[in-house]
């Protein structure tokens, strides 16, 4: 009997080992398959990393012509596309002019449009405004195509995240719709602020049967966002829009649950024009990036959340970056500006607002509620935040050239997306600011 028990146990053990070995095989096969998939994915993946390794070896001398943008296997060449919903026309990629100047230098040299695509290799990481994301992703993509040695990752988590991150030096650059209070500084020293694009804030609404261009002004908007005006056919709204058939739908005001540049702009506008109803409420007299009245309406995260909610809720009204509203095909409000005209957001009306910023600087940045017949009252510049003292010189050169390209050649991408190209004086301001970048020893990175 003893032997029988032994042999049974031996048999059981044998089976147990077999089964566990089979499970081990299954498990290791699964792990290998996952590993193989990820390796294949990494191998087939697009150019910046692969090409960067190639060009690192070749760009050694200072007298080189800019490498022609080659499109290698994985990346699809940009072609004119039509998307079903967005009315914006997407233009063909315009390649930057080939540099012929022999004075460009990858370790500094002149900062000019011709030399912007020659820089040391660098993987930049940035965080900041959600509103500039469509512009940045497109501009960085084209820059990487023109300059294979630089790739940029941008995280559109919000202006405040960008400010916090650059102050704590956890990213290479930040971006904010509102400049930091000067003197701006963080753990790495002084921070310089470079205006990089010009955008507007659309007040979008979802009201089936009502055409675009509904007229609203400061006091009415304040009433909506304070919860005092609750129906679309309220007398305040119908008074501004005679002849428009407004339904008795409930208004659903949508706001940003997180801090936002568009929120700041609208808050500033309502402080300027909304009267004592707005300034006497919790909103106060100072604009803030965190929306002040949070017990009315629905809060959603990021421009995308607000846009998505407006899209699916009849009766909703909310503020989004104009680029997002253009992509979604929203109907936008014609807002009353300081001259008394009701202006809809468009590339030209936003450009008109930008052109009023004749003395733009990081301390004098407010272009909300500008005057003029065709000026849209809710516009703002977006500011990129960089440390003045770049501890790593080649990274500093790469960043400087990147943003010089963004503010000059890259502006061609702005119009198609719903932003306006920077006015000439602002481009000059950006250039001047970038020239103040210096290395850790205090010497300027660029010569002119």
């Amino acid at each position, binding site marked *: 009997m003893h032997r029988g028990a032994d042999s049974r146990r031996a048999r*059981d053990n044998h*089976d*147990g*080992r077999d*089964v*566990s070995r089979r*499970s*081990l095989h*299954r*498990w290791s096969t699964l792990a290998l398959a*996952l*590993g193989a*998939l*990820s390796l294949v*994915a*990494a191998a*087939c*993946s*697009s150019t*910046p*990393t692969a090409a960067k390794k190639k060009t690192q070896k070749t760009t050694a001398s200072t007298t080189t012509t800019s490498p022609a943008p080659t499109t290698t296997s*994985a*990346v699809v060449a*940009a*072609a004119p*596309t039509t*998307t*079903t919903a*967005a009315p*914006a026309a997407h233009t063909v990629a315009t390649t930057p002019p080939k540099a012929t100047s022999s004075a460009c230098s990858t370790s500094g040299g002149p900062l000019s449009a011709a030399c912007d695509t020659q820089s040391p290799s660098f*993987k930049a*990481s940035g*965080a900041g405004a959600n509103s500039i994301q*469509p512009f940045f*992703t*497109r501009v960085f*993509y084209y820059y990487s195509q023109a300059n294979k040695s630089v*790739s*940029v*990752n941008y*995280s*559109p*988590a919000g202006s405040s995240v960008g400010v916090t*991150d650059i102050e704590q*030096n*956890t*990213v290479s650059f930040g971006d904010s719709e509102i400049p930091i209070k000067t003197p701006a500084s963080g*753990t790495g020293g002084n921070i310089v602020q470079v205006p990089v694009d010009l955008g507007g804030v659309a007040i979008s609404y979802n009201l089936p049967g009502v055409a675009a261009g509904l007229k609203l002004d400061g006091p009415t908007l304040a009433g909506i966002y304070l919860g005092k005006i609750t129906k679309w056919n309220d007398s305040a709204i119908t008074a501004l829009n005679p002849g428009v058939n407004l339904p008795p739908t409930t208004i659903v005001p949508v706001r940003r649950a997180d801090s936002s540049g568009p929120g700041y702009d609208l808050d500033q506008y309502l402080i300027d024009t909304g009267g004592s109803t707005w300034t006497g409420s919790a909103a106060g007299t100072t604009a803030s990036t965190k929306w002040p009245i949070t017990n009315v309406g629905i809060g*959603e*995260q*990021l421009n*995308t*959340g607000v*846009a*998505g909610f407006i*899209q699916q809720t009849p009766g909703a009204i909310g503020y989004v970056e104009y680029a*997002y509203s253009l*992509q*979604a095909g929203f109907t936008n409000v014609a807002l009353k500006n300081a001259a008394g005209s009701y202006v809809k957001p468009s590339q030209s009306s936003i450009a008109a607002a930008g052109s009023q910023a004749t003395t733009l600087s990081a301390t004098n940045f407010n272009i909300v509620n500008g005057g003029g017949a065709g000026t849209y009252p809710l516009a703002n510049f977006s500011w990129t935040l960089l440390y003045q003292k770049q501890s790593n010189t080649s990274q500093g050169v790469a960043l400087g050239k990147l943003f010089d390209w963004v503010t000059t050649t890259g502006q061609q991408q702005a119009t*198609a997306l719903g932003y306006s190209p920077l006015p000439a004086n602002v481009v000059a301001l950006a250039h001047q600011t970038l020239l103040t970048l210096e290395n850790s020893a205090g010497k300027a990175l660029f010569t002119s």
Partner: protein
Amino acid sequence: MSLTVLPAGSGDFTDAIGTRRELVRESARRSLARRRIAGRIAIALCMVAVAISLAPLVALVAYTTSRGIRVLSWSFLTHVPTPPGIPGGGISSAIVGSVIIVGLAAVIAVPVGTMCALFLVERRGRLAGAIRFGADVLTGVPSIALGIFAYAVLIGPGSLIGHFSGLAGSFALAVLMLPIVIRASEAAMRSVPRDLWEAGLALGVRRSRVVRSVVLRGALPGLVTGNLLAVARAVGETAPLFVTVLGASLLVTNPLQPMGALSLTIFNNANQALPAAQQLAWGTAFVLLVLVLVLSVVARLVSARLNRQARR
């Protein structure tokens, strides 16, 4: 049920018994009918409950599949995302990022968890009880708290790495996986029959050798199940990654840099008004769903094999 009635006139006493018996049977029959109907109604309600339980799963899977499957293609899985309006984008950076982050988390959590489970199996006393209690409580900690813990230790000012990175995300996910691995491993090791332990020890074999050759081998299916379930739980987490890994659209393989992840891609893209971005998000959601379901099903198959083996 037949009613045997004594013939009338058999006597007053038997009459009374018969009537009483008939009364009891009649009331029992009525109550049984009532109880049966009540039972049938209750069972029907339970079936409605089952249908209501299954409805969200069917709705979720159907919605994710219908929105995500259109985008799925080989190029979708192998290309990096492109800016809005430019076709040909994909989620390879997110897949690679997720694999690296979760892989590193597993590399941290599985050895530490198994070692701790060995400790709990070998030792009795208040310390072991306290650690077991700690593991039980740690399973209930919200994942956002673990993410912020990783932020405080690894990212915030004056900390070890100092900036957003995949490694911080891995650390948060490892702390998330740790209690699952510990409890599952301990249960698996304890399920190895005691006489196998004793047989090994009786042969004079060192304790560590017994554990290595007998216990771990016998508990291997249970260990694999527990680890796979922990990995499946970690892959689907968004909140800890949100505060530790900044997210990246380009391919990043260095864990000390911000990287992309599947759940972050979904979060950043899903609400976008542009249809292409929405498609990207739901394609990613579909991929993530399939990945997590596959891991769960595999874990379940392994555990079923274990049960079958134990019963033999």
